[in-house]
């Protein structure tokens, strides 16, 4: 693929309605896909406690395409994902209905895929909160994923590109960043339902959220920094996901920005 006109679309059979996210501009061929799902994927038979817990308590199913991810890596990532959901529900009162959908027919899922450009991806499947988190096959197949991904993530942290997290969390940091995107979208869905925002497109909503959090950070906590990493300055959606990861791993008292995001998520806004 080599980055030539890369886009992001799910392909392959059995993709259960994952949206075709990129159809090109009508005049030129669409970009090459960067995410290819496994054909004939089905629910995993792997016997892990966390897999049963996600299925029974959260309505999130893990697919066979993750079977070649080493157990330690998968277990750690799914446990972290579960922790995020627990915190969102208990601390921030963001319901599962908004986070992961509702009803037995609306299951979120965890899958493996051939991707380029990223280690993990969160794709929203519909307007009800259902999502798929994909893990890149190229990054773990035939490798010690825990060691490899920790090292790769660590390089990006060391350069200041990504938010600093404890070194023993490097291999799960991508999952939490992706969950940050899903949390922001859950807030958007909730705000729309409560008519706090009406027809505001998501990208404009993201700018408004960033403004609101920065206002809290500056006015309430006198914070002078407005970003937690270089990547967070690329766009307001990545800004939210990076700040979310900072709050999740480093806690509320890490900076004015983490305090402000914590306040914002609790509904304590200016």
């Amino acid at each position, binding site marked *: 693929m080599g980055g030539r006109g890369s*886009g*992001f679309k799910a392909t392959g059979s059995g993709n259960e309605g994952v949206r075709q996210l990129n159809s*090109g501009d009508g*005049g030129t*061929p669409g970009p090459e896909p960067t995410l290819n799902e496994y054909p004939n994927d089905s629910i995993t038979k792997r016997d892990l406690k966390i897999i049963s817990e996600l299925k029974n308590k959260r309505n999130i199913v893990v697919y066979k395409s993750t079977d070649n991810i080493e157990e330690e890596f998968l277990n750690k990532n799914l446990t972290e994902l579960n922790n995020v959901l627990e915190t969102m529900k208990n601390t921030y009162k963001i319901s599962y209905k908004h986070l992961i959908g509702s009803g037995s027919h609306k299951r979120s899922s965890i899958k493996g895929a051939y991707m380029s450009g990223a280690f993990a991806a969160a794709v929203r499947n519909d307007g009800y909160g259902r999502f798929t988190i994909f893990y890149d096959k190229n990054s773990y197949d035939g490798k010690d994923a825990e060691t490899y991904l920790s090292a790769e993530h660590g390089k990006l942290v060391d350069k200041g590109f990504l938010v600093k997290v404890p070194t023993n969390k490097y291999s799960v940091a991508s999952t939490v960043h992706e969950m940050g995107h899903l949390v922001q979208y859950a807030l958007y869905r909730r705000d729309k339902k409560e008519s706090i925002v009406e027809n505001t497109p998501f*990208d404009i909503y993201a700018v408004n959220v960033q403004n609101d959090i920065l206002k809290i950070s500056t006015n309430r906590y006198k914070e002078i920094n407005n970003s937690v990493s*270089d*990547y967070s300055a*690329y766009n307001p959606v990545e800004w939210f996901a990076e700040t979310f990861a900072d709050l999740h791993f480093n806690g509320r008292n890490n900076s004015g920005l983490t305090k402000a995001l914590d306040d914002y998520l609790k509904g304590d806004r200016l």
Partner: protein
Amino acid sequence: MIPKKIPKFVEHKEFYTHNEYRVMVLTDIAPPYAVVEYNVLAGLWIPSLEKDYTIYPQQFYEMRTRIGYTLEKVEEEMKEIYTKEQILEWKKNFKK
């Protein structure tokens, strides 16, 4: 989505800016390698931003004509970014 690599073009402040939605976008003078790197990022952002910021051949042509490139020179640079098929398809639908 987190990119696996830090794009090199960000080392040059003159190659990028931010639009009204605070999304990083390339300037008209960004070199072909920057477009290749940027398109990787743009692809990663589609699910989260719900917008496609990919620079397609037509957009690249418009960037370069704004800084006075001839069509010949634009096509020369396009070879470093797009596949032959993409360039041929663009030519069929070429809008000045």
